[in-house]
Each structure stands twice: as structure tokens, then as C-alpha cells.
């Protein structure tokens, strides 16, 4: 049975690649390939699930290919199938199949018809990887695909301001979840002293053995995974991104944000449940988050005057309940709840445009003028307070700015004293010297060897902060990101012996994507275009191909899975020792910042309204 599992990944992969080969006007072929892929996949999922039931629900594990292997780590692509995978996959395939057919007519003649179907297939691939993943590393690949397709689908109408702004907002948060997941993987790696698989997690003996010695681990690991789950499932305090993600065509909102994408947090909790099952305290924490979210999101949904936003908050509230269900161990209920919520919210979103005529009609016959009797009592005041807070979405939309981005920006501002030129003049030679010592570590005194890695990491993080704060020249920001990556590599390279292949892999990723991206920017400058980051330029209007090339470079530079940078990054992370939390924190932070800077460069330069020439330009407020 387990040998079937890889096909559930290969099929959408093949469909995605194939559908990408046809131009936009071949709507029939693009749709045909997409629907055939998902239909076959659905049949497969059903067959597999039935077979699995017939076989009395075994846990199916497939030991896949090793991407690379060292003495202590083994990055392998493993697959796994159990009841959770089954329910999620069945629901996902049925829903994707239906929504795709719906979209065939809905998306007809849209400029982005092809982009839409490619993205949905890519999303489906990512989702399949997540659902069938056998270990955290594999799950992470799918997780990242989901993140990237989210960005593209939110910014689907890329020549308007709000979609692009909101796509950036969402992807920034996702980046935090990504980093959390990576940290979680790192922690697991150290806790279990190997890359743990999901089937091993089910074995109490394994957990017992490793957690006994370091009781801090289960709490840390669980917390970090909980953080990732809270972000992805738009739970408190991260809820406000979900309504803002509803920027793409209604069908994509229905499939992603109404349903599948946003329930991935619940999936992660279900998967990691064995790790925190025994901790009463932690279960209480999960319940608390679920409960707070449910209450706040319900209140917010009650006051919403836009239909999609209302559905988003209702969905968030139900997911909050699912968190509680998972924590209480009621997993069957959680899965039923998941399926019901997915279908209900997707349907509500798909038909949301008809709410107008339905409700107006209803009102025409049944309207009763509302009573205005709010009493001036404490209770009345409290009610009004809740009303106002709900209108303001409990200030959650500002939350990330206030507590994360703005402090980081202020940190970046502290570095204003370093002039931009100094960066190139100072840091390039510094890097070359450092690079020399990586291969000649014996020349360094041991004391230096001890502190240099951290020093390099600090330099790296400084560069990243500077890049994050900068609103000026894109080329400079781009270089800062590259240099940050190089310094991160350096810090780890100085820290420990490692194989040439590894560093070459990493460097090749950075260098190639760095150069390609740089060339794209140079090209724009040569064409007389502005590449200042203080506003959106929408260069994709006149340079669609260049946009595509730059996007690939950006994905690669930000460490998108399966690019050399990613593998290198992952390897390097693996090099950080279990007690070097500072180094780890720096590396994680610079990972987040790099991603943000790179996505921002892409969005500011290539997306948004293009105001040059005489063509339709969207208002800022749309």
C-alpha cells in the first residue's frame, strides 16, 4: 500500500508542469489538464481511503528518497497516510474538483486564467505534500508551496494596490510561521537526535526516551508548532490577515481562505498531538487560544458589513473551536467539524455575490424597523465597548506592526549611521577574509574561533535589518540580502567543519539567483525605469517576462524549497548546536527578514498600479 503514496505527489506535480506549458488563450486545454489531474487524484484518494479502511486502518509509511545524508542528518522525502490524511485529502480533493469546475466558467476570459489554474494546481501539489508528508521536512516543503501560492493568489489582481499590499501583509506573517516551523524542525532534530518521522511520533517509547532527559523540549517544540498553527489558521492574535486575503477571484477565496489553507493549522496540531498530549498545561494553553479566538472572531463576525469578511471571521471562530476539540482529544469530532466548516464556508463564499439580491428581497417582505434601546448601564456600556472593539477587529490588524515590524524597523534605524557605500567597501573585503578562514580555520586562534561565528551572525542580522528598513534603492536592498545570506553562511562555516559540497550548494543558490535578480534590476534601470522602493511601480505591466524571471530569482534567494538555497539553508541550520539559541535566533530572524525584503522588492517593483503611459490605472483605494 505504501508504494502508492508518492504518486499522490507526482500526479499533481505532473499536471502542474504540463498545464504551465500552454498559453493563456488555450482555456480548454489548461482546464482539461487541471481537472483531469484533480479528478484522477480524487479517485486515487477515495480508493486509497477505502482500501485503508478495508485494511483496518493501518498507519502507512513510505520511506522516500534522501535528498542528502550526513552522519547525523538525513533530509529525506517521506510519506505517511492515516485517518487524518485521509479525511483532509478526501475533503480537499472533492472541494478542489468542484471549485475548479466552477472556475472554468467563472474565470473565462480573465487575463489570469492560466495563472489561476496553475496556481490552484500548485497549491494542490503543496497541499498534497503536506497531507501525505511523513516527516516535518517534507511537510515544510508543502507548507512553503502553500505560502507562495497564497501570495500569488492574493496578489492575483496585481495591478491594483490593495491586493498587493495585502499579499505582502499575509506573506510576512506566513514567513513568521515558516521560521517557526523551521525552528520546530531544528528542535526536533536535536531532541530526537535525528529527523523524526510521524510514525515514530506515535510510538510512546520514542517520545518517552527523548523527552525524559530534556523536559524543556516537548514544551518548546509544542509552543513553536502552536505558533505556526496559530498564524496559518488565523487564530488570535493573528486573525486579521484572513479577511484581507480575500482579494483574488471569489473561487480562490473559497478554496483557500474559506477552507483548505486556513485549516492547515488544525492539521499541524493533529500531527503534533503526540508530542504535547501528556502536558495538561499545554493543552490548556491551546484551549485558551481557541476560546479567545472563538469569542473575539464571533463578535467581529457579528458586526461585519461585508459578506466575505463576515464569512472569514465565522470560519476563524469555528477553527478556534477545532483547536479546543483537538486539545481535548476529540479528534473525530474535530475532523467532522473541519469537513463541515470547509464545505459550508466555501459554499457561502461561492454564492456570496447573491446575498445582495436574496437579502434585499427578504427584507422587502420581512423588514422590521429595529428598536433603539440601549440602556445607559454598565452592561450597556460593556456591550458598546465590545461593539466598538469588534468594529476595530480588536486592533489585531495593527498587532504585528506594533509588536514586530515597527520595533524591527526601529532597530534598523539605529544602523542609519552606517552609510550605504560603507556596506560595499567594508563588508565585501570582510567577507572575503572570512571566507578565506573558513577553509583555513587552523590559522585562527581558538578564542577567535569561538566568537567569530556569532560576530558574523550579528553582522548578518545587521545587514538584514538595514535592508528591512530601507525604502530606497532596490539594488542595494537586494545586495544586502545576498550579503546577509553570505555572512550567515560564514558564521556557520567558521563554526564547524563542513563539506565543500554543502557550502557550494548553498552558495550556488545565492550567487546564481543573486546575479539573475541583479541583472533584472540593471535591466530596468537601463530602460529608464525607477527602482526606488518608496512606492509600487507595477513594472509587470510593461515587463511581464522580466517579472517572471525576477520572481524565480526572488523565490530562490528567499530559500524556497527545493532550490539550492533552501537545501543549503536547511543544512546550515542543522549545524547550529542545541545550546546556541542566540545564533539560532539570529539565523531565524534573518531568515524572516530576508524573505520579507525579497518579497517586498518584488512587490514594490513589479506589482501594483503602473502609472506610466495612457492606460487604465486603478485607484489607490481599490
Amino acid at each position, binding site marked *: 500500500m505504501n508504494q502508492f503514496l508518492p504518486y499522490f505527489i507526482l500526479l499533481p506535480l505532473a499536471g502542474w508542469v504540463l498545464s504551465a506549458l500552454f498559453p493563456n488563450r488555450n482555456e480548454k486545454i489548461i482546464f482539461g489538464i487541471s481537472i483531469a489531474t484533480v479528478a484522477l487524484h480524487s479517485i486515487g484518494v477515495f480508493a486509497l481511503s477505502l482500501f485503508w479502511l478495508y485494511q483496518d486502518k493501518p498507519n502507512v509509511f513510505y520511506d522516500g528518497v534522501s535528498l542528502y545524508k550526513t552522519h547525523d542528518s538525513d533530509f529525506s522525502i517521506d510519506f505517511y497516510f492515516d485517518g487524518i490524511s485521509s479525511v483532509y485529502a478526501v475533503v480537499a480533493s472533492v472541494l478542489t474538483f468542484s471549485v475548479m469546475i466552477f472556475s472554468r466558467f467563472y474565470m473565462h476570459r480573465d487575463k489570469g486564467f492560466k495563472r489561476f489554474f496553475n496556481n490552484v494546481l500548485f497549491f494542490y501539489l503543496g497541499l498534497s505534500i503536506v497531507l501525505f508528508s511523513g516527516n516535518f521536512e517534507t511537510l515544510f516543503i508543502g507548507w512553503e508551496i502553500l505560502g507562495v501560492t497564497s501570495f500569488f493568489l492574493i496578489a492575483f489582481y496585481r495591478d491594483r494596490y490593495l491586493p498587493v499590499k495585502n499579499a505582502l501583509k499575509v506573506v510576512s506573517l506566513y514567513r513568521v510561521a515558516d521560521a517557526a516551523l523551521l525552528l520546530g524542525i531544528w528542535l526536533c532534530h536535536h531532541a530526537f537526535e535525528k529527523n523524526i518521522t510521524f510514525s515514530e511520533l506515535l510510538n510512546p517509547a520514542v517520545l518517552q526516551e527523548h523527552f525524559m532527559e530534556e523536559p524543556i523540549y516537548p514544551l518548546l517544540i509544542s509552543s513553536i508548532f502552536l505558533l505556526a498553527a496559530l498564524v496559518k489558521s488565523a487564530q488570535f492574535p493573528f486573525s486579521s490577515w484572513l479577511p484581507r486575503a480575500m482579494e483574488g477571484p471569489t473561487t480562490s477565496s473559497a478554496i483557500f481562505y474559506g477552507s483548505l489553507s486556513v485549516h492547515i493549522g488544525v492539521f499541524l496540531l493533529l500531527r503534533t498531538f503526540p508530542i504535547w498530549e501528556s502536558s495538561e498545561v499545554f493543552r490548556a494553553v491551546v484551549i485558551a487560544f481557541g476560546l479567545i479566538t472563538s469569542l473575539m472572531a464571533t463578535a467581529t463576525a457579528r458586526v461585519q458589513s461585508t459578506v466575505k469578511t463576515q464569512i472569514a471571521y465565522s470560519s476563524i*471562530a469555528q477553527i478556534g473551536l477545532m483547536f479546543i476539540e483537538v486539545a481535548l482529544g476529540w479528534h473525530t469530532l474535530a475532523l467532522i467539524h473541519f469537513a463541515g466548516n470547509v464545505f459550508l464556508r466555501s459554499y457561502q463564499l461561492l454564492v456570496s455575490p*447573491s446575498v445582495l439580491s436574496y*437579502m*434585499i428581497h427578504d*427584507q422587502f*417582505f420581512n423588514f422590521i424597523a429595529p428598536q*433603539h434601546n440601549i440602556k445607559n448601564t454598565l452592561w450597556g456600556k460593556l456591550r458598546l465597548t465590545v461593539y466598538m472593539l469588534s468594529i476595530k477587529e480588536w486592533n489585531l490588524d495593527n498587532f504585528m506592526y506594533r509588536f514586530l515590524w515597527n520595533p524591527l524597523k526601529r532597530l534598523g534605524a539605529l544602523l542609519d549611521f552606517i552609510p550605504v557605500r560603507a556596506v560595499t567597501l567594508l563588508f565585501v573585503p570582510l567577507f572575503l577574509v572570512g571566507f578565506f578562514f573558513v577553509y583555513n580555520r587552523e590559522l585562527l586562534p581558538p578564542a577567535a574561533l569561538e566568537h567569530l561565528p556569532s560576530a558574523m551572525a550579528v553582522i548578518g542580522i545587521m545587514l538584514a535589518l538595514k535592508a528591512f528598513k530601507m525604502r530606497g534603492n532596490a539594488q542595494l536592498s537586494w545586495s544586502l540580502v545576498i550579503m546577509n545570506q553570505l555572512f550567515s553562511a560564514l558564521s556557520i562555516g567558521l563554526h564547524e567543519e563542513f563539506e565543500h559540497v554543502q557550502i557550494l550548494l548553498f552558495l550556488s543558490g545565492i550567487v546564481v539567483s543573486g546575479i539573475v535578480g541583479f541583472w533584472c534590476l540593471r535591466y530596468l534601470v537601463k530602460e529608464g525605469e525607477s527602482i526606488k522602493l518608496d512606492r509600487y511601480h507595477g513594472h509587470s505591466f510593461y515587463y511581464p517576462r522580466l517579472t517572471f524571471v525576477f520572481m524565480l530569482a526572488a523565490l530562490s534567494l528567499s530559500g524556497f524549497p527545493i532550490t539550492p538555497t533552501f537545501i543549503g539553508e536547511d543544512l546550515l541550520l542543522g549545524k547550529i548546536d542545541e545550546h546556541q539559541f542566540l545564533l539560532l535566533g539570529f539565523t531565524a530572524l534573518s531568515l524572516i527578514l530576508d524573505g520579507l525584503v525579497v518579497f517586498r522588492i518584488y512587490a514594490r517593483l513589479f506589482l501594483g498600479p503602473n502609472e*506610466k503611459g495612457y492606460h487604465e490605472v486603478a485607484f489607490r483605494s481599490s
Partner: protein
Amino acid sequence: MMNHKLTELVVDTQQESVGFDEEHILEALKHFLPTQTPLKDFIHHNSLHAFQQMEFYDAIFKASKIFGYKVTFNLDEYRGLYQIGRIRMDILDKVISERKGPAALSAWKQLVLLQSYDETVHPRIGRLRSAWKTAYRIDLNNLVQPLLFRILGSYLDQGIALWHFPFEDQGLLNAVRELERNSFSSFFKTNRVKKLLLDEKNCTISNLLSLLVGDEAYFEQYLFDQQFSHRGWSGMSAALEAHPEAILYPKKIELRDLIVLELLLEMDALEAQLAGAWIPLSEKVKVKPVDLFADFETSELHEVYRIWQDAFEWSYYDEVLAGLQQLKLKRPESKRSHKHFQAIFCIDEREDSIRRHLEAMDKDCETLGSPGFFGVEFYFQPENGKFYEKLCPAPVTPKYLIKEFGANSHREHELLYTKKTHTLLRGFLSTLSLGVLAAAKLFLTIFRPKMSPAISNAFAHMNVGGQLTVENKSLEDRENDLQIGFTVEEMAARVEGLLRGIGMVEDFAPLVYVMAHGSSSANNPHHGAHDCGACSGRPGSVNSRVFAIMANHQKVRRLLALRGLVIPDETQFLGALHDTAADEIAFFDEHIISQKNATAHKKNVATFERALDLNAQERSRRFASINTHAELKHVREAIRLRSVSLFEPRPELGHGTNALCFVGHRSRTKGLFFDRRAFMNSYDYRTDPEGKLLLGVIRPLPIVCGGINLEYYFSRLDNYKLGAGTKLPHNVTGLIGVTNSSDGDLRPGLPLQMIEVHDPVRLVILVEHFPEVVLKTVQAQPEVYEWFINNWVHLVAIHPETNQFYYFRNGAFVLYEPLAKEVKSAEDMQYLIRNAKEMKTNFIVDATQEHLPVHVIND
């Protein structure tokens, strides 16, 4: 009248400045903001109505300079149209020669075809307010708009939220004040601003502007910048202030309140972000205030656009005129004495094709056209309805009420639309229960679309089983200041008015169908835009039924006979409704049909059915999902399914492609193929030689047809700023409109899916009468004349005796001889239709190729 007063106001503004006059600026703002009311009623209007007192090109270029709208194609697009022959060379030459003189032809042609220009528009709007960003690196739009829209949306909400805005009966600003006073939270971050709000006496626009902007000279520009940064919400507030009856759930809203609230929020944002370290904007900016409405010097480039647009329009009109000429020469009029039946349709250009098919199916029928409210103006109250619906053109205010009774209708509900799924516990239970239902529904929606309560059904507008209070019982029978029903005298006046207006005064057929129209569509917030424009964006079923009842009334007939309009006793009028999306027809009150007419009616119904089949086939050529070559009944079924398919953003194409409006006898157009682009109003100059009735016929045309045409024109050319953009991401807000995103502005105008087939050409009204009579008629009323003298619609008189065309230019008629000597002719038009090309993309050069040229159909 309103317009004129405002025009003066705007002119005043330009003459500057005796200090800040709040009332004056508010009026000016309201004049320029979009006037679209909530989507439940869709009234088409000129998107640039505020500029209508100016000449068309001057107006659009000025609007573009001020607000940054795209008002013509760009040069690449025009040149592309020229390359594919859509813009004809001979027409281009003629346009240049006429405008620039024959001597300058080659020089200008060079410019038009080859010169490159920097076409970027640098609008005047927004410049002052953007100085906040340059001065303080602060983005007020981002900081203020999301909360402002949320408050405004919640305040105006008609029923999406479960919890309505507290104190909403007190006006926006007062409601916010009460909230601030009575809760522990605040919309404001700073106490200073909260205090400003609560100080009711001094919380005025001018006081706030003094704090925020400083120098009075900048106030007007600042307010325009501010309000036009979200013209959707501001326009909606202003429109609801002017028309509080446009929503069912009453709300008190004033543009003034919105502005005060926004100024406060802006100041709050500045205080909070800059910790009080800011000075009024006028002290920060170096430039003088800009007069937004100052005269605008057009350039050579604008001349080039103008030449191109004229050539684009005349390339089509010329073909139309050539077709009319050819038909007249070929087919001298023959009068048929015995008609099987007559059918009065709405003038709507979507009825062009069904009339053509009907005439082809039964050579002895006559079709006529008249605005689809059929001259009867009233409010309608369906049984159990809590409100009235206006059923006549938007500018008319009826004095009558028609009530439905005895229908015993029972409205069905749709479980999945219940708001209870948005509460926590019931939401929990409903996800568990309704989730399964939703999954099943989803499948049914996709594979078995069918009519449901969630779909706007044109036939459900009126219950056929119910009865209507058409006749007034006594003058005391009134409700809310409206007379219930019409007296016999009033009925007779209306029936006579309509019949004489369309020249239907003799040779009545035994059956006269009064065919209203409406449109069913699913998942479509803009469904009102597909219904009858003459019925305030609603189906015209009640009007057609009421008219038929009036015209069949014995006392009415007697009165009419006294006035020389004799309708034979055997003639019966029958109301009916044509669903232009589903291509179905329902007939009303069939039980009144006399035995003598019953067989004929049965036969006629079959004729209508066959015409509907062909009509469906003709329409299907523009729908990619339907195979036009399939069997007729399959095509017809596919067309019907579109109107109930939730996944179909184009249930029909509305008024897309409209370009002509013909006023005259059908014999001049019968046999011409206009590809559903012509409004057709019946009128017979012979029954009205002096043109006494002509004004009544022409008066509504510019505002109804011209309004439709110009809304399509501007939504096509700038779908981002003047249109609503693509429908696909729309988010229904407050049941009043659609927005992009959860933080976006309302999007008035037409969505992309409605305008992509449209060629933006101005409407040309063709009137069959003597030019001097037409001239006298259009000049009779200034508000009618404005449309023509300022070139917002074109006017051509067809001389009924010499058959020559006279084009209205600069206040006079000049002879126009079509350059095209011949138009195409065809034996089997349906064959051409089935094999017509489908657009590759909706880019204009591709899209325009979908249109079929004017054809003379050979018998």
C-alpha cells in the same frame, strides 16, 4: 434644473475666493461625485454627468486632467483598430479634412498614424493631500481609510451584520459621538481629537480644516483630494443624502458628517503617529493651491485622440446609414392590411433580435417599440411587501400606487443563506449539519443548476396569480399620499399617449402583445443593470399587465373612440414578460382571451417560441460555453441554464454593444441586421406631421438610452476608475454595493464582464422626420438640447420624402452622404451568426472583431 444650479456653483468656484463657503463646496463635491445609488436599483446614467454642460471632448479631456480618468483609447489601440480595418481609411480622411481642412490632411494624417507622444496623464487631484506623505512620511490613506470605511459600512449596512450600528437613528456623527460617550473603547487614539469630536458646537468642517490644513485658500483642494481618494463611499453617502428612499432600512447620512469624521480621523492619525509634532499642511507645502477646475489647454495629442474617436464612431455610423439607404432603395414599403398580431416591445436594443426573428417567423405580424414602462408610471406594492417599488423612468415621480392582492404567494427560503451560521454555537451546529448540505449543494450548483430563491428571477417580480388595483375606486382611496389605481380618464390618457406616440392608430390586429422585459441571473449583485431601464432597473411585467388591463377596459375604449382612436372590439391586449437572459416569455391574464382569439393566440405562442429559439441561438454566438452549432433546443436550454448558474458571471451581456437609437416606422429598419445594437422606438411622422408628439417621444431617449450608452462608454474605456472592475473578486458590502477587499472603496460603474463586448461609440439617435421639425423639437427644452448641442449623443434626421440624411452639427442640420456605397447582404443571416468569429481576448482590437457588420437581409 439641479444641474444648472450646480453648474453655476462650479463656475463660481473658479472665480475664487471670498473665503471658505462650506455649503458651496459641499454642493460642488456632490456635483462631481458618482451619483450611483445602492445596487438593488440600477439606474444607468452618464458617468461624467458633472461635465455635461460642456462640449463632449472638452469635457472628457478636462475630466481626465482633473481626475485622471482614461476617456479615449490610447494611440496603440486606435492604430490597432485602424490596422484591422475597424477604423476606415476613407472615414479617417474625411474626419481630418472636415476638422483641419483638406490642405492639412496629409500633415495631420502623419501625426495621427505615426507620431509618438508621451501619453501619460498627470491628474490634478490628490496632489495637495499627498504632501502629508512627502512631508511626514505618513500614509493617511492607509491609516484612516480602513477604519473609516468600516464605520461607514457598518452604519449604512442594510442587513449583513447581525448587530446593527448603535444610535444609528441619530445621524452618523451623532451616533459616533454617543458611542464615544458611552463605551470604554474609542475609535480615536488621542484624547485631543476625541475632545474635538465631543465639542459639538465647534466640530465643523472649517474649524477642523483650520487645524489640519491651515490656510483657507487650500480648503477646497484639500476636500476634493480627500473625498476623491474614495469616491465610491463619498458618492454613496451623497447619493443617499439626496435619495434616502433608495434604501429600505432607513439611515440618516450626510456627506458633511462623513467629511467631519474623516478629518477627525486624519488628525488623530497625525497626532498618534507623529506624537503631536506636526504643523498644518499649508505651512508645509511650498506650492500655491491648485484650482482643480481651471481651464485646461488641450494639446495636439488631444486633437489626435479626437480625430481617432470620431473616425472610430463614424466608421460604424456610416455603415448604418448606408444600410438604411440601401434598404430603402431596394424595398419600397408595402402595406399589409391584415396583421396576425402586433407586439409592442421595449425600445431596448436587446429586443432588436427577437423582433427580427418574430417578423421572420410570421410575415404578417407587426412589432413596435416603446419605452418599457409603456407610459404608465406608478409605485407597485407586491402582496405582503413592506415597501413600494417605483416602476417608471428614474426622473419621474409617480402619483399612483398599484397594489397586488389575492396572490397567496409564499416565499421560499434558502437554508444556507441564514445568518445564524455566523454565531458561535449555532455556527458550530450548523457547520456540522449544513456542511453536508453545502457539499451536496455545491455539486448540484455545478452539475444541475436550477432556479432557487437565491437567484433573482425576473418572473417572480409579480405573481401572475395575483390581481392588481389598476382602477381607482374613489379619489379618497389613497395611501401615503399616493392615489391607488388610475381613474378611467387617467387610464385613457395613458393608453392614448402611448398608442399615438408609436403611431398605432389604425389597423389593429386582433391580439396586441405588450411585451415587457426583465432578466434573471444568479450570483449577480449587478442584476438590476440587466432589467428594464425605463422601469428604474426592474422587470416591466407589472407595467405591461397594467397597460393591457387599461387598454382592454371598456370605458377606456369608449373614451378613446370619442377622441378618434377606435380600437376594434375584437382586439385584445395581452401583457407578457420576456426574460432577456433565459430567453423565455410568460403571458399574463391569458384567461381573458376571447374564444375567437384563442386559436390565434395559441399559434402566436408557438411563433414566439420559435423566435425565442433563434434568438437564443443568435445570443449564444457570444458565449464560449455554448456550442452555437448544436441543435436549437440544446442551445435554448443552455441559454436558460446560464441564467440560473451561480458560476456564470455573464448570464447575459446587458446593453453591451449598444450604439444606435432609431425613432421612426419599422418599415425603415425591417430587414436590416443591426446585431442587437439598436434601440428602436416606433414613431410615425405621418400621424404627427407637425411633430407635436415628437418631443414626448424624444425627451426620454437621451437620458435613458444616452445614459446607458455613456455609462457603457466610460466603463469600457476606464474600467478601473469609472467602471467596477472585474466582478470576480467583488465583495458585497452592506447590501448596497460591491468593494474590492475588506478595506476597499465601493466600486460604482459597470463590471468588466458587462462591457468587454462593447465598442465605446456615442449613441446616434436617428429620427425619421423633416429636419426642421426635429430641430425645433430638440431645441424645445434646454435639458434635452444640452445632450445634442454638446455632442454627448449624435443626432441624424432622416428626411421622410427625399430619404436623405441630415447630421446635427453645431446647432444645425447638414446633409450627410454615406461614403460606403453598399453594405453586405445575406440570404441566411442565421448561418452567418452561427459561423461568426469569437473574440480571442477582450482587448478592444480583438473584441471588436466579434461584431457582425450591418447586413441587408434578403427575403
